[in-house]
């Protein structure tokens, strides 16, 4: 694309168009254009102004689009990065054997008895002894750390140990400076008691902020400080596994058949149009399909990755078929002719020559399809993968949820703790998508052959 070399303000003295026609030229009907007249100059200047404005509008549009993206990223990262940190309170915990209901010998002999021991009570007692009970400082679920400690070393029963316990969401938010301390008590999520308590803890050095392992390794929970995305991640992984296992082979085989073996007639034209349209159908329609066929007619287990995977597979199938057909079409016919001329059968031509050459394109299309499936929420909502689950899914037929659905569920929750977790989950999702897309682009650049 060559830029036409126009100077910004018309005549820069290059070509002198002002010369009047020479005496010898014939006098044609129209007078020569008076390039030098004032109005012509004004007109040209105006046209260049319009040019600059137009070009500026283009840059403005790009800036707005890019700016929105930046704004989105900054907002999400800004509100989400805190979810990777967790505030803990230092509490001296007395592992009273009587309160626990189990002694050292019993703990050593029968580890399963520990699951019935009363760690909640021990924790409540110790917290009340240290801090009084006017403010909720320690999370309800923090007792798990106590059990872990006893499992590791039963000998601590009967002793008092300093334990770092997960703080409540309000303490957590105060530590992360997320709460506006100047607002009225009525408008704040934390009351004055809690702020006073927090100040005391801070002053005594009983607070610390560490990497939030619970977020990355735990399942969902009612309390924001205990909520984790591992359950949703595993659910997404299982679902995508099913999607890939179904849509990749079926899509590639269907593309091979339609491109290489099927006769070219009106029927195949209709099929091509219908597959192209299927790729543009809104994803929620596939959710309706999954609901009525898989759940109602075939009675498959609700909320299971199997059903989610099947539904997403139907959605991804047209994308893979279209990408694979394009990749197959790109293989030049001379290679096919050469193989046929040697005496290879049509199936051998496809298997030995066409498929290996078309594979990079097929894989790129599949990976991009998987990335799209990872971010899909609506179809999974339809088939019920929005259940509230506090345990990590165990298999393909157990109820599960997926990461985008988890984000959706959490986004409804207005407590500050959950806003932070939602953004954190979004960060994780975006990181995964970035990785997958980069992989696809890398594959495409490295392996795609240009004929």
């Amino acid at each position, binding site marked *: *694309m060559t830029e*036409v070399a126009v100077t910004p303000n018309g005549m820069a003295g290059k070509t002198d168009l002002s010369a009047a026609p020479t005496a010898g030229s014939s006098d044609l009907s129209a007078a020569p254009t008076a390039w030098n007249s004032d109005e012509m100059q004004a007109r040209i200047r105006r*046209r*260049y102004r*319009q*040019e600059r404005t*137009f070009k500026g*509008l*283009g840059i*403005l*549009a*790009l800036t707005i*689009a*890019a700016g*929105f*993206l930046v704004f*989105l990223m900054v*907002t*999400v990262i800004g509100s989400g990065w805190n979810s990777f940190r967790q505030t803990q309170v230092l509490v001296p915990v007395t592992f009273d054997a009587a309160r626990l209901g189990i002694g050292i010998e019993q703990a050593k002999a029968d580890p399963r008895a520990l699951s019935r021991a009363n760690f909640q009570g021990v924790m409540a007692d110790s917290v009340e002894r240290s801090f009084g009970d006017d403010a909720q400082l320690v999370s309800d679920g923090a007792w798990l750390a106590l059990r872990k400690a006893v499992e590791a070393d039963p000998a601590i029963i009967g002793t008092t140990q300093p334990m770092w316990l997960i703080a409540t969401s309000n303490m957590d938010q105060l530590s992360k400076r997320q709460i506006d301390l100047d607002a009225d008590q009525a408008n704040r999520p934390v009351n004055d008691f809690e702020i006073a308590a927090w100040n005391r803890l801070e002053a005594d050095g009983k607070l610390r902020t560490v990497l939030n392992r619970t977020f990355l390794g735990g399942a969902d929970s009612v309390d924001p400080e205990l909520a984790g995305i591992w359950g949703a991640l595993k659910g997404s992984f299982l679902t995508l596994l099913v999607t890939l296992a179904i849509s990749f082979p*079926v*899509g590639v*085989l*269907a593309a091979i*058949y339609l491109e290489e*073996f*099927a006769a070219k007639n009106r029927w195949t034209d209709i*099929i091509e149009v*219908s*597959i*192209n349209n*299927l790729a*543009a*159908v*809104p*994803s*929620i*329609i*596939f959710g*309706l399909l999954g609901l*009525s066929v898989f759940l*109602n007619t075939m009675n498959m287990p609700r909320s299971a990755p199997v059903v989610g995977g099947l539904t997403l597979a139907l959605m991804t*199938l*047209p994308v893979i078929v279209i990408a694979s057909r394009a990749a197959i079409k790109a293989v030049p016919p001379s290679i096919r002719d050469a193989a046929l001329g040697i005496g290879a059968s*049509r*199936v051998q031509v496809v298997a030995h020559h066409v498929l290996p050459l078309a594979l990079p394109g097929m894989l790129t299309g599949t990976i991009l399809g998987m990335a799209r499936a*990872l*971010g*899909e*929420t*609506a179809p999974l*909502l*339809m088939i019920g993968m*929005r259940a509230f689950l506090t345990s990590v899914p165990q298999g393909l037929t157990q109820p599960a949820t997926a990461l*985008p659905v988890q*984000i*959706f569920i959490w*986004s409804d929750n207005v407590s500050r703790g959950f806003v932070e977790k*939602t953004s954190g989950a*979004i960060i994780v999702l975006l990181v995964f998508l970035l990785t997958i*897309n980069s992989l696809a682009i890398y594959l495409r650049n490295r392996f795609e052959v240009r004929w």
Partner: protein
Amino acid sequence: MSIGFVFLVVLALGGMAFWLGRQRGMAFAVAGGAQVGSVHSRPQYHGAFVAIMAVLPAFLVLAIWAVMGEGLVSREVLSGLPAGAVGDSDLDRSAFLSEVRGLVRGDYAAAFNPSADGAAVAWKLASARYGLLFGSAALALGLMGGLWAWTRLKPDFRARTRVERFMMILLVVASLVAILTTFGIVASLVFESFRFFQIVSPAEFLFGTKWSPQTAIRADQVGSSGAFGAVPLFWGTIFIGAIIAMIVAIPLGLMTAIYLTQYAAPGFRKVAKPVLEVLAGVPTVVYGFFAALTVAPAVRDFAISIGISNASSESALAAGLVMGVMIIPFVSSMADDALTAVPSSMRDGSLAMGATPSETIRKVMIPAALPGIVGGVLLAVSRAIGETMIVVMAAGLAANLTVNPFNSVTTVTAQIVALLTGDQEFDSAKTLSAFALGLVLFLVTLALNIYALAVVKKYREAYD
């Protein structure tokens, strides 16, 4: 024997069949000498033939077992119960059966229904018996198939042809799956919508203006008005997707495409296009969250500041703005393609007359590229009206028929989500109305897509 165990045994059988067939094939090859045509097929095809003939019948039996097995066992267990142990309705029976299944799996130690324990024992027995039946049938058929195939092997046996024909069948089946999905969608939507239209008349649905989808459970229930006029939904969908979003997306998308194709240096284009693609790759749930978190409050504050006091925090404007930004890459990429397809001779002709680039674009290239651009816009509209998460999270569920962008409206997609989450009985008009909405959505997007693709195709052909 469990189905998984038999599956593995069948696989092993297939492997052995392959090996034996291949051995025989290799013997043929050695005897025939290395001449083209002495043996019809290479040894691996002989092996594959035997393996397929062994594995296929066995898999068929396994498939039947997988589909029917549980039903057969259930039926036997239920028929063995004393009368009155379980209620008559399907719901009672299926609840009882899941209890029995739970007991068998060891999920819980005791069940509510006293007959469940005895039933669990009967279940285990029946399961084992059917397992033996099906498993041995599968293995027997597999062995017979493999043996029969092995005896057919001869030097001039066309094993490769058979194996390739089998692979062709596999290809055809795969294609059928891809094709049947379309029919499946249409069929299920039409079927459920038909049931809906037997309860609510199509005229009320398509032209009614009151949307309040309650169904009465009892005849005297208060608040069971049950109006299913979908016009507010259609309006909300168009308002957000086709009007507000397009007001944002068309100018921005078109200008970015113009700048990138006509003005930008190749290096700049290489950086800018991926940025736009990232915009397209962000999941819609993220856009929705962002819209609800940041954009909606900002819009409400803005509305209050210009005097509209009752602006809600879920507004059509918030959803429309974010959706518009999401659609920018679609419009931009289609406009990009359309502008690139205009022959450079047209552009050069205009520039050669002394027109500025912007005049060339406005007066020559855009009119020339217009069909392609219009097609792109139609596809973008189709995408926008099918979008779910942004509207669910930012636009709300109030079926309002309003032109005030600061009010909350709802769309077809948001309603589908609302109607189908939570408890549903599958026969109520409320649940079925979701399918009717889905059918309308599918038909409209289909029509837009077909028309848009046809327009773009015709436009391309005009310039090829």
